[in-house]
Protein backbone atom coordinates (compact mmCIF):
# COMPACT_ATOMS: atom_id res chain seq x y z
CA UNK A 1 0.00 0.00 0.00
CA UNK A 2 1.23 3.51 -0.81
CA UNK A 3 2.18 5.64 2.16
CA UNK A 4 0.94 8.69 0.26
CA UNK A 5 -1.66 8.55 -2.48
CA UNK A 6 -2.81 11.75 -4.14
CA UNK A 7 -5.42 11.85 -6.90
CA UNK A 8 -6.54 14.98 -8.76
CA UNK A 9 -5.37 17.37 -6.05
CA UNK A 10 -5.88 21.07 -6.72
CA UNK A 11 -5.43 24.02 -4.37
CA UNK A 12 -5.88 27.73 -5.03
CA UNK A 13 -5.32 30.91 -3.06
CA UNK A 14 -7.73 33.37 -4.61
CA UNK A 15 -7.02 33.39 -8.34
CA UNK A 16 -3.64 31.72 -7.93
CA UNK A 17 -3.66 27.96 -8.42
CA UNK A 18 -0.73 26.50 -6.48
CA UNK A 19 -1.45 22.81 -7.14
CA UNK A 20 -2.98 21.82 -10.48
CA UNK A 21 -4.76 18.47 -10.61
CA UNK A 22 -1.79 16.68 -9.10
CA UNK A 23 -1.74 12.86 -8.88
CA UNK A 24 0.98 10.56 -7.57
CA UNK A 25 1.62 7.57 -5.35
CA UNK A 26 4.61 7.14 -3.07
CA UNK A 27 5.70 3.83 -1.57
CA UNK A 28 6.55 3.59 2.12
CA UNK A 29 9.91 2.78 3.70
CA UNK A 30 11.93 5.26 1.66
CA UNK A 31 13.27 8.80 1.88
CA UNK A 32 11.50 10.93 -0.67
CA UNK A 33 12.78 14.30 -1.78
CA UNK A 34 10.05 16.81 -2.58
CA UNK A 35 11.97 19.07 -4.87
CA UNK A 36 11.11 22.32 -6.53
CA UNK A 37 11.85 26.03 -6.50
CA UNK A 38 10.33 28.43 -3.97
CA UNK A 39 6.62 29.02 -4.51
CA UNK A 40 6.06 25.89 -6.62
CA UNK A 41 3.48 24.42 -4.21
CA UNK A 42 5.70 22.22 -1.98
CA UNK A 43 4.62 23.76 1.32
CA UNK A 44 0.95 23.75 0.34
CA UNK A 45 1.21 20.04 -0.48
CA UNK A 46 2.86 19.31 2.88
CA UNK A 47 0.23 21.35 4.72
CA UNK A 48 -2.51 19.36 3.04
CA UNK A 49 -0.82 16.06 3.95
CA UNK A 50 -0.49 17.12 7.59
CA UNK A 51 -4.01 18.53 7.99
CA UNK A 52 -3.16 22.24 8.11
CA UNK A 53 -5.04 23.04 4.92
CA UNK A 54 -8.54 21.66 4.47
CA UNK A 55 -9.74 23.71 1.56
CA UNK A 56 -8.72 21.71 -1.52
CA UNK A 57 -10.22 19.44 -4.14
CA UNK A 58 -9.12 15.89 -4.89
CA UNK A 59 -8.37 12.83 -2.82
CA UNK A 60 -5.44 12.52 -0.44
CA UNK A 61 -4.72 9.32 1.48
CA UNK A 62 -2.02 8.62 4.05
CA UNK A 63 -1.42 4.88 4.43
CA UNK A 64 -4.86 4.34 2.95
CA UNK A 65 -6.59 6.76 5.34
CA UNK A 66 -8.09 10.14 4.48
CA UNK A 67 -6.54 13.12 6.27
CA UNK A 68 -7.95 13.21 9.78
CA UNK A 69 -7.43 12.05 13.33
CA UNK A 70 -6.15 8.57 12.35
CA UNK A 71 -3.74 9.79 9.67
CA UNK A 72 -2.32 12.42 12.03
CA UNK A 73 -1.46 9.70 14.54
CA UNK A 74 1.11 8.25 12.14
CA UNK A 75 2.51 11.48 10.73
CA UNK A 76 5.26 13.52 12.40
CA UNK A 77 5.62 16.99 10.94
CA UNK A 78 8.60 19.32 10.98
CA UNK A 79 7.32 22.63 9.61
CA UNK A 80 9.37 25.43 8.17
CA UNK A 81 8.37 27.71 11.06
CA UNK A 82 8.86 27.04 14.75
CA UNK A 83 5.58 26.21 16.46
CA UNK A 84 7.11 26.25 19.93
CA UNK A 85 6.04 29.28 21.99
CA UNK A 86 8.94 31.62 22.62
CA UNK A 87 8.51 31.62 26.40
CA UNK A 88 8.99 27.85 26.53
CA UNK A 89 12.22 26.12 27.47
CA UNK A 90 13.45 23.04 25.58
CA UNK A 91 12.17 20.95 28.49
CA UNK A 92 8.72 22.61 28.32
CA UNK A 93 8.58 21.82 24.61
CA UNK A 94 9.55 18.17 25.14
CA UNK A 95 7.05 17.74 27.95
CA UNK A 96 4.30 19.40 25.91
CA UNK A 97 4.86 17.22 22.85
CA UNK A 98 5.31 14.19 25.12
CA UNK A 99 1.93 14.81 26.68
CA UNK A 100 0.20 15.29 23.33
CA UNK A 101 1.62 12.37 21.33
CA UNK A 102 1.60 8.82 22.68
CA UNK A 103 4.46 7.74 20.41
CA UNK A 104 6.88 10.41 21.66
CA UNK A 105 10.02 9.14 23.42
CA UNK A 106 11.02 11.66 26.11
CA UNK A 107 14.30 9.92 27.06
CA UNK A 108 15.40 9.90 23.45
CA UNK A 109 14.50 13.58 23.21
CA UNK A 110 16.72 14.51 26.17
CA UNK A 111 19.54 12.47 24.57
CA UNK A 112 19.07 14.47 21.39
CA UNK A 113 19.28 17.72 23.33
CA UNK A 114 22.62 16.82 24.85
CA UNK A 115 23.88 15.61 21.47
CA UNK A 116 22.89 18.97 19.99
CA UNK A 117 24.52 20.77 22.94
CA UNK A 118 21.19 22.24 24.03
CA UNK A 119 20.27 22.36 27.70
CA UNK A 120 16.71 21.56 28.88
CA UNK A 121 16.34 24.93 30.60
CA UNK A 122 17.33 26.90 27.49
CA UNK A 123 14.51 29.22 26.42
CA UNK A 124 13.36 29.20 22.81
CA UNK A 125 13.63 33.00 22.65
CA UNK A 126 17.36 32.76 23.44
CA UNK A 127 18.02 30.11 20.77
CA UNK A 128 19.56 30.78 17.37
CA UNK A 129 17.76 29.67 14.19
CA UNK A 130 19.98 26.57 14.03
CA UNK A 131 19.24 25.67 17.66
CA UNK A 132 15.50 26.10 17.12
CA UNK A 133 15.71 23.88 14.06
CA UNK A 134 17.50 21.22 16.12
CA UNK A 135 14.86 21.44 18.84
CA UNK A 136 12.10 21.03 16.24
CA UNK A 137 13.98 18.10 14.73
CA UNK A 138 14.18 16.55 18.21
CA UNK A 139 10.44 16.98 18.69
CA UNK A 140 9.79 15.37 15.30
CA UNK A 141 12.33 12.55 15.23
CA UNK A 142 11.56 11.36 18.76
CA UNK A 143 8.13 10.28 17.63
CA UNK A 144 7.75 6.71 16.41
CA UNK A 145 5.85 7.70 13.28
CA UNK A 146 5.20 5.88 10.04
CA UNK A 147 5.65 9.00 7.94
CA UNK A 148 7.92 11.95 8.70
CA UNK A 149 7.12 15.10 6.79
CA UNK A 150 9.80 17.80 6.82
CA UNK A 151 9.56 21.21 5.24
CA UNK A 152 12.99 22.66 4.47
CA UNK A 153 14.68 21.12 7.51
CA UNK A 154 17.97 22.78 6.60
CA UNK A 155 16.63 26.16 5.59
CA UNK A 156 18.60 29.11 6.98
CA UNK A 157 21.04 27.14 9.11
CA UNK A 158 24.86 27.05 8.97
CA UNK A 159 26.81 24.13 7.41
CA UNK A 160 27.68 22.56 10.78
CA UNK A 161 24.03 22.54 11.84
CA UNK A 162 23.07 21.17 8.41
CA UNK A 163 25.48 18.28 8.91
CA UNK A 164 24.06 17.55 12.40
CA UNK A 165 20.50 17.66 11.08
CA UNK A 166 21.34 15.36 8.17
CA UNK A 167 23.08 12.84 10.42
CA UNK A 168 20.17 12.87 12.85
CA UNK A 169 17.64 12.30 10.09
CA UNK A 170 19.64 9.39 8.67
CA UNK A 171 20.56 7.65 11.89
CA UNK A 172 17.25 7.94 13.74
CA UNK A 173 14.67 7.04 11.18
CA UNK A 174 12.63 4.11 12.50
CA UNK A 175 12.88 0.98 10.37
CA UNK A 176 10.19 0.83 7.71
CA UNK A 177 9.15 4.44 8.12
CA UNK A 178 8.99 6.86 5.21
CA UNK A 179 10.24 10.42 5.01
CA UNK A 180 9.05 13.17 2.76
CA UNK A 181 11.57 16.00 2.82
CA UNK A 182 10.91 19.21 0.98
CA UNK A 183 13.92 21.20 -0.11
CA UNK A 184 15.23 23.42 -2.84
CA UNK A 185 18.80 22.79 -1.69
CA UNK A 186 19.26 19.45 -3.44
CA UNK A 187 23.02 19.39 -3.05
CA UNK A 188 22.80 19.00 0.75
CA UNK A 189 20.51 15.98 0.69
CA UNK A 190 21.16 14.43 -2.71
CA UNK A 191 22.84 11.34 -1.27
CA UNK A 192 20.02 10.78 1.21
CA UNK A 193 17.07 10.47 -1.13
CA UNK A 194 15.74 7.14 -2.46
CA UNK A 195 13.03 8.78 -4.48
CA UNK A 196 12.41 12.21 -5.98
CA UNK A 197 9.12 13.99 -6.49
CA UNK A 198 9.65 17.17 -8.46
CA UNK A 199 7.12 19.98 -8.63
CA UNK A 200 7.14 22.94 -10.95
CA UNK A 201 4.46 25.64 -10.87
CA UNK A 202 1.93 23.34 -9.24
CA UNK A 203 2.51 20.34 -11.53
CA UNK A 204 4.37 17.12 -10.81
CA UNK A 205 7.11 16.97 -13.42
CA UNK A 206 8.96 13.91 -12.13
CA UNK A 207 8.22 11.02 -9.81
CA UNK A 208 11.28 8.79 -10.13
CA UNK A 209 13.50 6.59 -8.06
CA UNK A 210 16.92 8.16 -7.54
CA UNK A 211 18.55 4.88 -8.62
CA UNK A 212 16.80 5.12 -12.00
CA UNK A 213 17.92 8.72 -12.38
CA UNK A 214 21.50 7.75 -11.64
CA UNK A 215 21.30 4.84 -14.08
CA UNK A 216 20.68 7.39 -16.79
CA UNK A 217 24.11 8.80 -15.96
CA UNK A 218 22.85 11.93 -14.24
CA UNK A 219 23.07 13.07 -10.68
CA UNK A 220 19.85 14.13 -8.98
CA UNK A 221 20.93 17.75 -9.17
CA UNK A 222 21.65 17.47 -12.91
CA UNK A 223 18.31 15.77 -13.47
CA UNK A 224 16.57 18.51 -11.48
CA UNK A 225 18.27 21.18 -13.61
CA UNK A 226 17.20 19.45 -16.82
CA UNK A 227 13.60 19.08 -15.60
CA UNK A 228 13.41 22.70 -14.51
CA UNK A 229 15.16 24.06 -17.58
CA UNK A 230 18.05 25.41 -15.53
CA UNK A 231 21.48 25.63 -17.29
CA UNK A 232 23.42 22.56 -16.20
CA UNK A 233 26.17 23.67 -13.88
CA UNK A 234 27.65 20.18 -13.70
CA UNK A 235 29.14 20.51 -17.18
CA UNK A 236 31.26 23.38 -16.02
CA UNK A 237 32.32 21.20 -13.13
CA UNK A 238 33.75 18.53 -15.44
CA UNK A 239 37.33 19.78 -15.21
CA UNK A 240 37.07 19.18 -11.46
CA UNK A 241 35.90 15.62 -12.11
CA UNK A 242 38.85 15.09 -14.43
CA UNK A 243 41.17 16.47 -11.80
CA UNK A 244 39.70 14.04 -9.26
CA UNK A 245 40.20 11.11 -11.64
CA UNK A 246 43.82 12.16 -12.23
CA UNK A 247 44.32 12.47 -8.49
CA UNK A 248 42.96 8.96 -7.91
CA UNK A 249 45.14 7.47 -10.62
CA UNK A 250 48.23 9.14 -9.15
CA UNK A 251 47.19 7.92 -5.71
CA UNK A 252 46.75 4.34 -6.97
CA UNK A 253 50.33 4.36 -8.18
CA UNK A 254 51.93 6.25 -5.31
CA UNK A 255 49.89 5.22 -2.25
CA UNK A 256 47.89 2.03 -2.98
CA UNK A 257 46.79 1.72 0.66
CA UNK A 258 45.20 5.15 0.81
CA UNK A 259 43.74 4.56 -2.66
CA UNK A 260 42.07 1.35 -1.45
CA UNK A 261 40.74 3.07 1.63
CA UNK A 262 39.15 5.78 -0.48
CA UNK A 263 37.79 3.26 -2.94
CA UNK A 264 36.21 1.18 -0.17
CA UNK A 265 34.64 4.28 1.34
CA UNK A 266 33.12 5.16 -2.03
CA UNK A 267 31.90 1.58 -2.50
CA UNK A 268 30.31 1.64 0.94
CA UNK A 269 28.58 4.91 0.06
CA UNK A 270 27.33 3.34 -3.15
CA UNK A 271 26.13 0.25 -1.27
CA UNK A 272 24.09 2.42 1.09
CA UNK A 273 22.67 4.84 -1.44
CA UNK A 274 22.39 2.94 -4.67
CA UNK A 275 21.98 -0.76 -3.96
CA UNK A 276 21.20 -1.64 -7.55
CA UNK A 277 24.33 -0.05 -9.04
CA UNK A 278 26.36 -1.60 -6.26
CA UNK A 279 24.95 -5.06 -7.03
CA UNK A 280 25.72 -4.62 -10.74
CA UNK A 281 29.24 -3.57 -9.87
CA UNK A 282 29.80 -6.65 -7.68
CA UNK A 283 28.40 -8.98 -10.39
CA UNK A 284 30.61 -7.34 -13.02
CA UNK A 285 33.59 -7.68 -10.68
CA UNK A 286 32.90 -11.41 -10.12
CA UNK A 287 32.42 -12.03 -13.84
CA UNK A 288 35.67 -10.17 -14.53
CA UNK A 289 37.39 -12.39 -11.93
CA UNK A 290 36.13 -15.58 -13.61
CA UNK A 291 37.43 -14.48 -16.97
Amino acid sequence: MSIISVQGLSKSYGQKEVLKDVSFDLEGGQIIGLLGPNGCGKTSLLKILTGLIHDYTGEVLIDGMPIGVESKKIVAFLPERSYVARWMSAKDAIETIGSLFDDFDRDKAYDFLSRFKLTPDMKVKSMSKGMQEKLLLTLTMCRDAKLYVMDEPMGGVDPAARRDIKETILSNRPKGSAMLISTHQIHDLEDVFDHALMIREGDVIANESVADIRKSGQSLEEYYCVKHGIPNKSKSAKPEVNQTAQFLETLRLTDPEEYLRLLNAQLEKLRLNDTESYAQLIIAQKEGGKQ
Partner: protein
Amino acid sequence: MKRLLKNEIKSTAQSMMGIYLATVITLAVMLLAQLANINWLTGVSYIALLIVGFLVFFVTMITVIRNFKLSLYGNEGYLSYALPVKGGTLLGAKTIVSAMWMLISFVLWIGVWVGSTAFLMSRLEEEEMTILEAIKELLPMLVDIPGTGVLVLSVSFIASYIFLLMLVFVAVIFFAITVAQTRYFLSGSTIWSILLSFIIFLPAFVVNVYLTNNAPLTFVITAGGVGFIPHSMQDARERVFDYIETATWNFPFGVAGMIFMLLMSAGLFIASAWLMNNRTNVK
Protein backbone atom coordinates in the same frame (compact mmCIF):
# COMPACT_ATOMS: atom_id res chain seq x y z
CA MET B 1 -9.34 16.32 25.86
CA LYS B 2 -7.82 16.22 29.36
CA ARG B 3 -4.31 16.57 27.95
CA LEU B 4 -5.40 19.37 25.64
CA LEU B 5 -6.99 21.23 28.55
CA LYS B 6 -3.84 20.86 30.63
CA ASN B 7 -1.69 22.27 27.86
CA GLU B 8 -4.15 25.02 27.12
CA ILE B 9 -4.15 26.15 30.75
CA LYS B 10 -0.36 26.04 30.86
CA SER B 11 0.09 28.13 27.75
CA THR B 12 -2.53 30.76 28.62
CA ALA B 13 -1.51 31.02 32.29
CA GLN B 14 1.63 32.85 31.16
CA SER B 15 -0.44 35.78 29.95
CA MET B 16 -2.99 35.74 32.77
CA MET B 17 -0.66 35.53 35.76
CA GLY B 18 0.79 38.99 35.15
CA ILE B 19 -2.51 40.82 35.56
CA TYR B 20 -3.61 38.66 38.51
CA LEU B 21 -0.31 39.37 40.19
CA ALA B 22 -0.79 43.12 39.60
CA THR B 23 -4.18 42.89 41.33
CA VAL B 24 -2.78 41.06 44.33
CA ILE B 25 0.11 43.53 44.67
CA THR B 26 -2.21 46.56 44.47
CA LEU B 27 -4.51 44.97 47.05
CA ALA B 28 -1.57 44.28 49.35
CA VAL B 29 -0.35 47.89 49.00
CA MET B 30 -3.80 49.17 49.90
CA LEU B 31 -4.05 46.97 53.00
CA LEU B 32 -0.54 47.83 54.12
CA ALA B 33 -1.21 51.53 53.58
CA GLN B 34 -4.29 51.23 55.77
CA LEU B 35 -2.40 49.40 58.50
CA ALA B 36 0.28 52.06 58.41
CA ASN B 37 -2.37 54.81 58.38
CA ILE B 38 -0.99 56.43 55.23
CA ASN B 39 -4.19 57.98 53.95
CA TRP B 40 -2.94 59.32 50.64
CA LEU B 41 -1.47 55.91 49.70
CA THR B 42 -4.69 54.18 50.73
CA GLY B 43 -6.64 56.50 48.41
CA VAL B 44 -4.21 56.10 45.50
CA SER B 45 -4.09 52.32 45.82
CA TYR B 46 -7.90 52.19 46.03
CA ILE B 47 -8.16 54.02 42.69
CA ALA B 48 -5.36 51.83 41.29
CA LEU B 49 -7.26 48.74 42.42
CA LEU B 50 -10.41 49.87 40.65
CA ILE B 51 -8.40 50.45 37.46
CA VAL B 52 -6.59 47.11 37.77
CA GLY B 53 -9.95 45.45 38.45
CA PHE B 54 -11.23 46.77 35.14
CA LEU B 55 -7.96 45.85 33.39
CA VAL B 56 -8.28 42.25 34.62
CA PHE B 57 -11.54 42.00 32.77
CA PHE B 58 -10.20 43.74 29.66
CA VAL B 59 -6.88 41.85 29.56
CA THR B 60 -8.69 38.52 29.94
CA MET B 61 -10.84 39.19 26.89
CA ILE B 62 -7.81 40.29 24.85
CA THR B 63 -5.77 37.27 25.99
CA VAL B 64 -8.53 34.79 25.21
CA ILE B 65 -9.02 36.18 21.70
CA ARG B 66 -5.30 36.60 21.00
CA ASN B 67 -4.51 33.09 22.21
CA PHE B 68 -7.23 31.60 20.03
CA LYS B 69 -5.94 33.38 16.94
CA LEU B 70 -2.23 32.71 17.50
CA SER B 71 -2.48 29.14 18.75
CA LEU B 72 -4.62 28.07 15.81
CA TYR B 73 -3.67 30.35 12.96
CA GLY B 74 -0.26 31.70 13.98
CA ASN B 75 2.94 29.64 14.12
CA GLU B 76 1.57 27.50 16.96
CA GLY B 77 -1.20 26.42 14.61
CA TYR B 78 1.36 24.15 12.93
CA LEU B 79 1.24 22.06 16.08
CA SER B 80 -2.44 22.52 16.98
CA TYR B 81 -3.73 21.39 13.60
CA ALA B 82 -1.22 18.52 13.36
CA LEU B 83 -2.56 17.02 16.61
CA PRO B 84 -4.61 13.84 16.19
CA VAL B 85 -7.85 15.41 17.41
CA LYS B 86 -10.96 16.74 15.71
CA GLY B 87 -11.55 20.45 15.22
CA GLY B 88 -14.43 20.34 17.71
CA THR B 89 -12.17 18.91 20.43
CA LEU B 90 -9.57 21.59 19.80
CA LEU B 91 -12.24 24.29 19.86
CA GLY B 92 -13.88 22.76 22.95
CA ALA B 93 -10.61 22.80 24.91
CA LYS B 94 -9.98 26.41 23.97
CA THR B 95 -13.55 27.44 24.84
CA ILE B 96 -13.52 25.70 28.23
CA VAL B 97 -10.20 27.23 29.25
CA SER B 98 -11.26 30.64 27.95
CA ALA B 99 -14.49 30.40 29.97
CA MET B 100 -12.49 29.40 33.03
CA TRP B 101 -10.23 32.46 32.82
CA MET B 102 -13.20 34.70 32.11
CA LEU B 103 -15.02 33.35 35.15
CA ILE B 104 -11.99 33.83 37.41
CA SER B 105 -11.45 37.36 36.11
CA PHE B 106 -15.13 38.19 36.37
CA VAL B 107 -15.30 37.01 39.99
CA LEU B 108 -12.08 38.88 40.71
CA TRP B 109 -13.44 42.02 39.06
CA ILE B 110 -16.65 41.94 41.09
CA GLY B 111 -14.69 41.03 44.21
CA VAL B 112 -12.35 43.97 43.75
CA TRP B 113 -15.22 46.43 43.30
CA VAL B 114 -17.33 45.18 46.18
CA GLY B 115 -14.38 44.54 48.47
CA SER B 116 -12.58 47.81 47.87
CA THR B 117 -15.75 49.89 48.14
CA ALA B 118 -16.68 48.15 51.37
CA PHE B 119 -13.15 48.71 52.55
CA LEU B 120 -13.42 52.39 51.82
CA MET B 121 -16.75 52.55 53.64
CA SER B 122 -15.22 50.90 56.66
CA ARG B 123 -12.70 53.74 56.68
CA LEU B 124 -15.26 56.50 56.25
CA GLU B 125 -17.76 55.38 58.89
CA GLU B 126 -17.40 57.05 62.25
CA GLU B 127 -17.50 53.71 64.02
CA GLU B 128 -14.76 51.27 63.04
CA MET B 129 -16.15 48.16 61.32
CA THR B 130 -14.77 45.13 59.54
CA ILE B 131 -14.96 44.79 55.73
CA LEU B 132 -17.63 42.06 56.08
CA GLU B 133 -19.74 44.35 58.23
CA ALA B 134 -19.27 47.07 55.64
CA ILE B 135 -20.45 44.75 52.83
CA LYS B 136 -23.60 44.01 54.86
CA GLU B 137 -24.14 47.73 55.22
CA LEU B 138 -23.34 48.43 51.58
CA LEU B 139 -25.57 46.00 49.74
CA PRO B 140 -29.00 47.06 51.03
CA MET B 141 -28.01 50.63 50.22
CA LEU B 142 -27.63 49.78 46.55
CA VAL B 143 -31.09 48.31 46.09
CA ASP B 144 -34.08 48.01 48.30
CA ILE B 145 -34.10 44.22 48.33
CA PRO B 146 -36.04 42.30 50.96
CA GLY B 147 -33.68 39.74 52.47
CA THR B 148 -30.26 38.36 51.76
CA GLY B 149 -31.58 35.28 49.89
CA VAL B 150 -33.41 37.36 47.29
CA LEU B 151 -30.43 39.67 47.02
CA VAL B 152 -27.99 36.80 46.41
CA LEU B 153 -30.35 35.28 43.87
CA SER B 154 -30.75 38.56 42.00
CA VAL B 155 -27.03 39.31 41.97
CA SER B 156 -26.26 35.73 40.84
CA PHE B 157 -28.78 36.03 38.04
CA ILE B 158 -27.38 39.33 36.80
CA ALA B 159 -23.82 38.02 37.07
CA SER B 160 -24.79 34.88 35.11
CA TYR B 161 -26.37 37.04 32.43
CA ILE B 162 -23.28 39.21 32.08
CA PHE B 163 -21.10 36.09 31.98
CA LEU B 164 -23.32 34.60 29.29
CA LEU B 165 -22.98 37.78 27.24
CA MET B 166 -19.21 37.52 27.55
CA LEU B 167 -19.32 33.90 26.40
CA VAL B 168 -21.51 34.81 23.45
CA PHE B 169 -19.14 37.62 22.56
CA VAL B 170 -16.20 35.19 22.63
CA ALA B 171 -18.15 32.58 20.60
CA VAL B 172 -18.84 35.24 17.96
CA ILE B 173 -15.19 36.28 17.84
CA PHE B 174 -13.96 32.65 17.65
CA PHE B 175 -16.36 32.05 14.79
CA ALA B 176 -15.31 35.26 13.00
CA ILE B 177 -11.62 34.37 13.34
CA THR B 178 -12.33 30.89 11.95
CA VAL B 179 -14.35 32.22 9.01
CA ALA B 180 -11.53 34.68 8.27
CA GLN B 181 -9.20 31.69 7.73
CA THR B 182 -11.26 30.35 4.86
CA ARG B 183 -10.53 30.89 1.18
CA TYR B 184 -12.40 34.14 0.58
CA PHE B 185 -11.17 36.03 3.63
CA LEU B 186 -7.63 34.75 3.89
CA SER B 187 -5.96 37.91 2.63
CA GLY B 188 -6.61 40.49 5.36
CA SER B 189 -7.88 37.88 7.80
CA THR B 190 -7.38 40.10 10.87
CA ILE B 191 -9.48 42.93 9.48
CA TRP B 192 -12.09 40.46 8.30
CA SER B 193 -12.32 38.83 11.71
CA ILE B 194 -12.94 42.23 13.38
CA LEU B 195 -15.53 43.21 10.75
CA LEU B 196 -17.28 39.84 10.89
CA SER B 197 -17.44 40.00 14.71
CA PHE B 198 -19.36 43.28 14.54
CA ILE B 199 -21.52 42.11 11.63
CA ILE B 200 -22.63 39.08 13.67
CA PHE B 201 -22.66 40.50 17.19
CA LEU B 202 -24.52 43.78 16.69
CA PRO B 203 -27.68 42.37 15.04
CA ALA B 204 -27.61 39.45 17.49
CA PHE B 205 -27.50 41.87 20.38
CA VAL B 206 -30.43 43.87 18.96
CA VAL B 207 -32.46 40.64 18.58
CA ASN B 208 -31.46 39.69 22.13
CA VAL B 209 -32.67 43.02 23.55
CA TYR B 210 -35.91 42.80 21.55
CA LEU B 211 -36.65 39.24 22.72
CA THR B 212 -35.69 40.07 26.31
CA ASN B 213 -38.21 42.93 26.41
CA ASN B 214 -41.02 41.58 24.24
CA ALA B 215 -41.06 37.78 24.13
CA PRO B 216 -43.68 36.31 26.50
CA LEU B 217 -41.26 34.41 28.68
CA THR B 218 -40.09 36.13 31.84
CA PHE B 219 -38.18 34.80 34.80
CA VAL B 220 -39.11 36.61 37.98
CA ILE B 221 -37.40 36.76 41.34
CA THR B 222 -39.75 37.93 44.07
CA ALA B 223 -39.87 38.18 47.84
CA GLY B 224 -42.24 35.22 47.71
CA GLY B 225 -40.16 32.97 45.44
CA VAL B 226 -39.08 32.59 41.81
CA GLY B 227 -40.93 31.48 38.69
CA PHE B 228 -41.55 31.83 34.97
CA ILE B 229 -44.39 34.02 33.68
CA PRO B 230 -45.78 33.73 30.13
CA HIS B 231 -45.76 37.49 29.59
CA SER B 232 -43.28 39.98 28.24
CA MET B 233 -40.88 41.58 30.70
CA GLN B 234 -42.78 44.87 30.38
CA ASP B 235 -46.09 43.26 31.41
CA ALA B 236 -44.62 40.88 33.97
CA ARG B 237 -44.29 43.42 36.75
CA GLU B 238 -48.07 44.04 36.69
CA ARG B 239 -49.07 40.40 36.09
CA VAL B 240 -46.70 38.80 38.57
CA PHE B 241 -49.33 38.76 41.34
CA ASP B 242 -51.49 36.50 39.20
CA TYR B 243 -48.80 33.87 39.54
CA ILE B 244 -46.99 34.60 42.81
CA GLU B 245 -49.31 36.15 45.37
CA THR B 246 -46.58 37.14 47.82
CA ALA B 247 -44.52 38.95 45.19
CA THR B 248 -44.32 42.17 47.15
CA TRP B 249 -40.95 42.89 45.65
CA ASN B 250 -40.10 41.52 42.21
CA PHE B 251 -37.36 41.53 39.70
CA PRO B 252 -38.53 40.33 36.26
CA PHE B 253 -36.18 39.40 33.46
CA GLY B 254 -37.10 38.28 29.92
CA VAL B 255 -35.20 35.07 29.26
CA ALA B 256 -36.07 34.54 25.58
CA GLY B 257 -33.07 36.73 24.69
CA MET B 258 -30.81 34.56 26.84
CA ILE B 259 -32.12 31.40 25.20
CA PHE B 260 -31.58 32.95 21.78
CA MET B 261 -28.00 33.87 22.68
CA LEU B 262 -27.32 30.38 24.05
CA LEU B 263 -28.68 28.72 20.90
CA MET B 264 -26.73 31.13 18.72
CA SER B 265 -23.51 30.33 20.62
CA ALA B 266 -24.10 26.60 20.20
CA GLY B 267 -24.74 27.13 16.48
CA LEU B 268 -21.57 29.20 16.12
CA PHE B 269 -19.59 26.55 17.98
CA ILE B 270 -20.81 23.79 15.66
CA ALA B 271 -20.20 25.94 12.58
CA SER B 272 -16.68 26.85 13.77
CA ALA B 273 -15.84 23.18 14.40
CA TRP B 274 -17.11 22.24 10.92
CA LEU B 275 -15.06 25.00 9.30
CA MET B 276 -11.98 23.89 11.24
CA ASN B 277 -12.40 20.36 9.91
CA ASN B 278 -13.27 21.26 6.34
CA ARG B 279 -12.46 24.77 5.20
CA THR B 280 -9.70 26.52 7.13
CA ASN B 281 -6.13 27.16 6.01
CA VAL B 282 -3.17 27.72 8.31
CA LYS B 283 -1.01 30.33 6.61
